[in-house]
């Protein structure tokens, strides 16, 4: 009898443990940090202060089942993709199929001057059949990028109501020459797609694709953007991209930064948002597990006396938790002291905030350099890049920041390349993609 009770007890314990581990809810919340560039501000004068609102996404533990993915790959199979590029692109698509689980949905659209759905949206069950269909793709024709993305979105929409993470991966090496083809138009398409929770990740292959269009599309739809010189890097990017897709921990994020009386918002750096009186409103579409995304804003802090402790800004972050489908709200605030001691002020510098601020400024300079060289003003472009590098270098030295120093040196090299060779296709793509990745805090790569 004792034995029986003992055994029954053990079984109950096991069942209980199993049931708790099975149904253990995932409660990882996004953490919001609000930091000023210096925690001690100089007393006695009004000043501009950079505030960094950081959202730290928690890592997703392995026991948590990720939501299923609804992936559509849109593949440019125009004539220019012929050869190695299409071969690698196919390999990458096959890699993606192999990585998806049985509950995921996969579709594949190819386009040249026309658009064809090679694999209509379906559960990834019969992998062999899908792979053999992918292998039969060959390259020819011109480039109907808009139609391709539209078709990809249409495949995604077949399961739009369901609880999937929706993503299109667009791979192209050429200019769109059929259908709307301006960066603005494709940007609007991206903006419309994100309203349906569809993100478009763009991968540009080689030197002939339109980087403005591709980055704009992914930026507006909150996807990632990549530039690869050869197709051989594709499988790796696809793997990274799918890793990202599978780990979204926050969606539809709204950040409201509010300032107390006396503190005035001046500008938002590197992101789009609204300044409404004492409030700054920003939105981000999604946050991946273990990812850090941030917003930088500049505010004017009033003259204060030594010893004052002041709340500079507080942030309210509202987002949708894809795991429990609830709306979560987290808060953060930043407090600063005031002191007349310059050493103390300098010592209190938050290097991370300063670094990101300058990196963002640098990204803006990169964009400016592109637009200058597009207008044929290569000299001015080089000057802008060099000035930005000098600035970053001096800041890096001031705060002894190696990351920033390295970036400044990269920038100098890029400026030199442009100075000697002009803004070539490759450099333009590097600058455009880097500035995009910076501004968007792209996690992958």
């Amino acid at each position, binding site marked *: 009898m004792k034995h029986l009770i003992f055994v029954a007890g053990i079984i109950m314990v096991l069942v209980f443990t199993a049931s708790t581990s099975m149904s253990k809810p995932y409660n990882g919340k996004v953490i919001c940090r609000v930091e000023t560039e210096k925690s001690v501000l100089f007393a006695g004068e009004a000043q501009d202060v950079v505030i960094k609102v950081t959202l730290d996404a928690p890592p997703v533990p392995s026991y948590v089942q990720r939501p299923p993915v609804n992936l559509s790959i849109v593949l440019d199979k125009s004539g220019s993709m012929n050869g190695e590029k299409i071969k690698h692109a196919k390999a990458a698509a096959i890699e993606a199929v192999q990585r998806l689980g049985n509950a995921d949905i996969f579709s594949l659209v190819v386009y040249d*001057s*026309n*658009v064809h759905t090679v694999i209509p949206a379906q559960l990834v069950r019969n992998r062999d059949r899908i792979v053999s269909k992918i292998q039969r793709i060959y390259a020819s*024709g*011109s480039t*109907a990028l*808009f*139609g391709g*993305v*539209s*078709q990809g*979105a*249409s495949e995604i929409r077949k399961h739009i109501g369901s609880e999937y993470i929706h993503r299109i991966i667009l791979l192209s090496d050429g200019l769109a020459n*059929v*259908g*709307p*083809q301006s960066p603005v*138009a*494709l940007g*609007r*398409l991206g*903006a*419309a*797609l994100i*309203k*349906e929770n569809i993100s478009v990740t763009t991968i540009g292959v080689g030197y002939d694709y339109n980087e403005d269009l591709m980055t704009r599309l992914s930026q507006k739809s909150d996807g990632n953007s990549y530039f690869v010189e050869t197709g051989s890097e594709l499988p790796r990017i696809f793997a990274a991209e799918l890793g990202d897709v599978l780990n979204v921990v926050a969606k539809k994020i709204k950040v409201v930064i509010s300032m107390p009386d006396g503190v005035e918002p001046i*500008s938002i750096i590197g992101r*789009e*948002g*609204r*300044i*409404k*009186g004492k409030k700054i409103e920003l939105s981000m579409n999604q946050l991946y597990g273990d990812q850090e995304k941030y917003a930088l804003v500049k505010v004017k802090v009033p003259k204060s006396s030594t010893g004052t402790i002041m709340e500079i800004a507080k942030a309210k972050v509202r987002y949708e938790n894809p795991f429990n489908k609830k709306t979560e709200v987290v808060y953060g605030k930043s407090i600063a002291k005031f002191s007349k001691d310059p050493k103390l002020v300098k010592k209190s510098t938050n290097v991370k905030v300063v670094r990101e601020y300058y990196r963002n400024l640098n990204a803006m300079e990169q964009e400016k350099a592109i637009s200058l060289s597009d207008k044929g003003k290569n000299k001015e472009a080089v000057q802008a890049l060099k000035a930005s590098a000098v600035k970053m270098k001096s800041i890096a030295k001031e705060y002894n920041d190696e990351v920033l120093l390295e970036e400044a040196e990269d920038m100098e090299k890029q400026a030199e390349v442009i100075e000697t060779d002009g803004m070539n296709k490759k450099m333009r793509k590097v600058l455009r993609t880097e500035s995009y990745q910076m501004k968007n805090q792209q996690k992958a790569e």
Partner: protein
Amino acid sequence: MKSRPFIILFWVLLLVPAVIISVVAFKLLLHEQERINRSTIISLTERAETLARNIHITVKEVEESLSRALIDIEPDKLKSTLLFWEETNPLIRNVFIWEKKSLLKYPAKGMASTLEERQFVSRFDSFFTGERAFAVNIQTEEIEQPSQYQSSKGSLYDLARGKTAMSTEIQGIQEQDLNSGKIVFTQQSGWIPWFAQDQLFILGWVKKIRNGPVYGIELELVSLLSRLVVDLPQIEGQGLSFAILDSRKQIVHLSGGIEIEDTHACDISTPLSVLLPHWQVCIFFDRENYAPGKGFLYVSMLLLFIFMAAIISGGLLITSQTRKHMKDAMQKTSFVSSVSHELKTPLTSIRMYSELMLDGRSVSKEKTKHYLEVMVAQSQRLTRLINNILDFGKLEQGKKTYNKGEVNLRNLLIRIIDAHSIRIKKAGFKINTNISKEAYKVISDSDAIEQVILNLIDNALKYAKSGKFIAFALEDDFKNYILLKISDHGPGILRKHQKAIFEKFYRIDNSLTSTFPGSGLGLSIARQILRDLGGDLYFEPTSEGGSCFIARIPKQDASK
């Protein structure tokens, strides 16, 4: 059907209608081709129009349901609803709220709006500043709102849906209602296609209450297009493409097998919709590849050609056959009469001499001998003639057999000349021989060759009467043949007859009154025998104008 002109006449009678039928058929085919081309263009145009109509209906439906949704917004939730839509509806690019007095209420000015919103405001600036009225494409719906429902706004929705009425009818009710103290809602809405920076933008607006705010949305055209294009039919096949072109003639959507280089070179175009002004559906087709009638024309032309070829060649065949049969019939008739004549002559001699001998009038031995010699010669002639006829029959049927063995041509020729020298000399010819002492050995049939030689000698005796000699020669061509030449000094043969003399039954003078007797078989038989033995017989005029027949006899057995 007996004479040549008749045959030609009948042939022409066959040919002329055939040619006329062909020409008419060709013209009809061209017409048919044109008709098919025309109907292709008509059907393509219809397809383009259907496509345009479908797109128009879709866009109209989108606009109407958006208008309806805008109208249905509860006034106190106007801003929040619009903002929610802007954020979630992919078809909505921007939203606005405008009042006549305070002008634009939303989007806010300055930094409180995004860059996109600022651009939107500047695009439609002339409307938002009041410079231009919204009521461009106006649709008016007037809904009676009884005063008792004024407070319960939820029911307004139902009422508006249920009691839509024509504006003309409403005018009266409006007056009445005003008098009776009820409030009348005048709902106006419209869609404005607007070009800014050479691009089309579409603004939808609603004015729900008289003197109330005008609010609305800017349509996300790209998103609408993106949804439209995936539902458009795919054009399969070569040589045809459908394209939707925007106001700048840029391709918005393309389906089909033609790569388009110049969008201005559109084959068929039709305006897309009044809702999307200056946009068009364009069809490009490659007249070489996309012409369903072309194949029809080619096939029909081929059939017509075969028909013509069959008629003409059939006519020619019948004509030539008829002519051949006529010729054969004439030659056979002449052959029979010639042969009868040929048979009759020796028979008459034999009969005459044998009757003389029977009467016993000839007493002298010499005379009797002469008579007998004549009878023998004439019976030999008869035998040769009959042999020739028999041989001809065998040769025709391919039944003649040859006994081959080693033949010494020199000896054979000399023996034949010796045997016939009396006959030749009696006919008034001298015999010239040019035969060396060589043996001229061949493997052949000596009887057959003898027959050839005899036929040639007979011919010479018959036709070269004016000649003074018959020459015989043997030559070795030092290759594979021995050449046996028999020539005379006669009148020769006209060039036009030189080939035909070897044809069976052919005689230069074929009339019954012909000076020369003959069956027209000798040369034909001689040539056929030589060919069977692997050699040949041909004619060469001599330098003096006479005839020379050359028999080419193979040294070895070269027969088939």
